């Protein structure tokens, strides 16, 4: 007997909503078994992971804080993924964005710089964009795989960050910790609510989502990009310029990640630290896929992944769950999503007897 996948004529709406829900259910069931097998209180852990973040305004506000960078980066990445441009170096673009933004408060620690905050966000966005553009240039000019180039650039960005924080940018009064001075008041993003940490970067992220929606779903450019992803040959025949799409998608991805990086140092951190990113660039790839690469879906998936982060934090306290459990959960979620999405998109066809 032979198993074959046959593409459905029309990708059903059910697939778009059903796949992530089914993936989440499967992930929960599998982690229940896994946690129980490891002797952890599985029910309690799952309760903390998925429900605790909703039980107090403070933890819910932390979800919103986490969501801002994930959402913004994922929207930028998804535009590229849909056009078959695989920028997996958002981590590096985020770090470079954070670096560029931090240059202002580091060199003007008293805040004596006109429009400090605007300059920081702009520098962050442009820095991320420029960093991603290296990959675009090498891909269009030399045909170098953007997957590997963006990845390598991310690893280089980490080293640049380490160099600056251990050397020239280290806070002289920071007890030798690898971090910069604390930023002055006018280098910090305004908060959205009183007493909790979410700031206006959430507005940037939602604005970015709206932009992505209009561009990808309503504008001819989005149609070109989607065609390039689904049917590269058709896009070529139609005369859509491939180099232009590569430049555009990488630049947008870098811009979004750079702004997110700038917002992180100008937001909850208030200084540049070694752990500035804590893996947002990679988690955003998961967010983008679990959101079906669609702007609306990504809003939902970024919220879900943020809930998992905050829930994971509380589960370490209430259920003794190791921090790594969140990673396990994320990895499983993406794997199950890829599985369920394909199963809904394709029909499974069994053939008996001789192979066709």
């Amino acid at each position: 007997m032979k198993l074959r996948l046959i593409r459905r004529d029309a990708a059903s709406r059910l697939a778009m909503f059903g796949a992530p829900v089914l993936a989440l259910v499967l992930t929960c069931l599998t982690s229940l078994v896994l946690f129980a097998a490891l002797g952890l209180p599985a029910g309690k852990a799952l309760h903390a992971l998925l429900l605790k973040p909703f039980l107090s305004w403070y933890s819910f506000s932390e979800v919103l804080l986490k969501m801002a960078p994930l959402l913004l980066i994922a929207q930028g990445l998804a535009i590229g993924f849909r056009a078959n441009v695989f920028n997996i170096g958002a981590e590096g673009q985020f770090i470079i964005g954070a670096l560029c933004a931090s240059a202002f408060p580091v060199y003007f620690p008293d805040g004596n710089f006109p429009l400090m905050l605007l300059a920081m966000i702009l520098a962050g966005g442009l820095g991320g964009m420029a960093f991603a553009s290296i990959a675009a240039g090498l891909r269009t000019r030399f045909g170098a795989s953007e997957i590997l180039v963006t990845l390598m650039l991310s690893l280089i960005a980490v080293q640049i960050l380490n160099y600056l924080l251990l050397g020239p940018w280290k806070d002289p009064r920071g007890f030798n910790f690898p971090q910069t001075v604390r930023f002055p008041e006018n280098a910090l993003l305004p908060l959205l609510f009183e007493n909790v940490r979410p700031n206006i970067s959430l507005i940037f992220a939602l604005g970015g989502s709206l932009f992505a929606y209009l561009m990808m779903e309503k504008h001819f450019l989005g149609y070109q990009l989607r065609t390039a992803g689904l049917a590269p040959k058709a896009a070529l025949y139609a005369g859509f310029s491939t180099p232009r799409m590569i430049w555009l998608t990488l630049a947008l991805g870098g811009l979004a990640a750079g702004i997110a990086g700038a917002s992180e140092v100008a937001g909850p951190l208030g200084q540049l630290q070694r752990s500035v990113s804590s893996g947002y660039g990679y988690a955003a790839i998961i967010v983008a896929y679990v959101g079906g690469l669609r702007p609306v879906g990504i809003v939902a998936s970024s919220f879900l992944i943020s809930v998992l982060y905050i829930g994971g934090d509380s589960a370490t306290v209430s259920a003794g769950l190791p921090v790594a459990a969140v990673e396990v959960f994320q990895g499983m979620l993406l794997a199950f999503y890829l599985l369920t999405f394909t199963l809904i998109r394709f029909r499974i066809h069994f053939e008996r007897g001789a192979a066709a």
Partner: protein
Amino acid sequence: MSALEFLLAGTLAAALPLLLAALGEMVVEKTGLLNLGLEGMMAIGAAIAFICVYHTDAHSLGFLAAALVSAVLALIFAALVIVVQANQVAAGLAVGVLGLGLSALFGKSYESQTISGLEEIGLPVLSQIPVVGPTLLTQDIVVWLTLLGTVGLWYMLNKTKLGLIITAVGESAEAARAIGYPVGLIRTIAVAFGGAMCGLAGAYASTVYTPLWADGMIAGRGWIALALVVFGTWRTGRVVFGAILFGVLSLGELTAQAIGVAIPSQVLASLPYIVTILMLVAISRHQTRVG
């Protein structure tokens, strides 16, 4: 011991995890796939091997278990990419994140525990040579076995029919399928092999190179191994050369001392990635194997 002698003695051991993982990934990429989950597969291998050796004190068992578990993780990638035709970038990252998470989860109660490493074996007669003998030519058994195995892998890929079939599958899956080769099966086996090699790489890192458990101990070696495959342009000999070069670089500041130059260690740490980008630029005009 001078810095140079230290480097001679340590380079092969530092290069070994990179070499093992890169050789595995090279075979995977030769069949036309790209598995980005190396870091995670190495991490889970490292954890499993450490736990095994901690309880049984048998390194061979640790290596075997690590290879098996990492191969199973790699088969998840194979199932996603080959059977349900999911995007391989996403699938590779899923497996990578999963492996990293599981490794931390399993290893948690062993944090900072130590085990005994492996004794070093000098090559007969040759290890009597001054300077080189007691350093470069005195290594643990895994180093010697890996070097032997590498020759075997080179022979298999370049001199046997199986090697030709693997290359054919990578160059043109359609043509290979038309001739009647089971493309899916060959790729699945290659992916499992790649996973097993990552498992061995992780096992070496956690039970021989630094026989101590610390979360995140793979510390980016998986990404360097991935770079190494490109650097070696998918050829066994060049991958070995690259592994030794990257191994020297990974010894970072030590190397700087040995050559007597004050270079920031971050520059040395970045070099593998920089040369890999340059290599991609240099080869990509002729070759579009990946991406």
